[in-house]
């Protein structure tokens, strides 16, 4: 079974500053990795995904993430954040087996201020 750890429950950052949201996973087999974003009173939206191939994955809204197999990490980054990036961000993992289901981390609240 897989698991996900998001160590930072909240990340405050000033507008136009860079940000990194950390995600570490645990699995005994190969995995697919995802980042979802949740704006207030809404469902989750897919930000980006890693299925295979290049370990650097680019998503919507200028976000990117890098899959690091040796460190079992999939950290999310953005070089310059905007106020509108304020939201909850969830990392998720699933094993590549067809019977596996998606497991979410506990989320990181990104708070962007002026």
């Amino acid at each position, binding site marked *: 079974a897989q698991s996900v750890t998001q160590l930072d*429950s909240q990340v405050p950052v000033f507008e136009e500053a860079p940000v990194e949201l950390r995600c570490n996973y645990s699995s005994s087999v190969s995995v*697919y990795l*995802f980042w*979802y974003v949740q704006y207030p*009173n*809404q*469902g*989750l*939206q*897919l930000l980006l*995904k890693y299925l295979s191939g290049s370990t650097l994955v680019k998503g919507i809204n200028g976000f990117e993430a890098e899959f690091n197999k040796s460190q079992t990490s999939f950290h999310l980054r953005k070089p310059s954040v905007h106020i509108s990036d304020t939201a909850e961000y*969830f990392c998720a993992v699933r094993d590549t087996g*067809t*019977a596996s*289901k*998606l*497991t*979410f*981390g*506990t*989320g990181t609240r990104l708070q962007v201020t002026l």
Partner: protein
Amino acid sequence: IAGITQAPTSQILAAGRRMTLRCTQDMRHNAMYWYRQDLGLGLRLIHYSNTAGTTGKGEVPDGYSVSRANTDDFPLTLASAVPSQTSVYFCASSESSNSPLHFGNGTRLTVT
């Protein structure tokens, strides 16, 4: 606009009462899911369905039941609600069990 519709948006329910949360998708996705979201716990899978006519248990299935009579609908039933079922419930779907999930806007349920 194609997507997932959840109803009701919010509900206050007395303990012991029966409640069905509705979920409908118009994307013809094969797989559907129910998650609950609780502060500090993230999203936890309650039940899922890989295709119409089949269902499976997720991480926290106790106290909940689902059915999948057709591709579009995936209702979640609480037979006898308890306060610990106070949560925000999200329905999701995916084209296949390997595809990314699309989420509804959630149902906020309070059990008193």
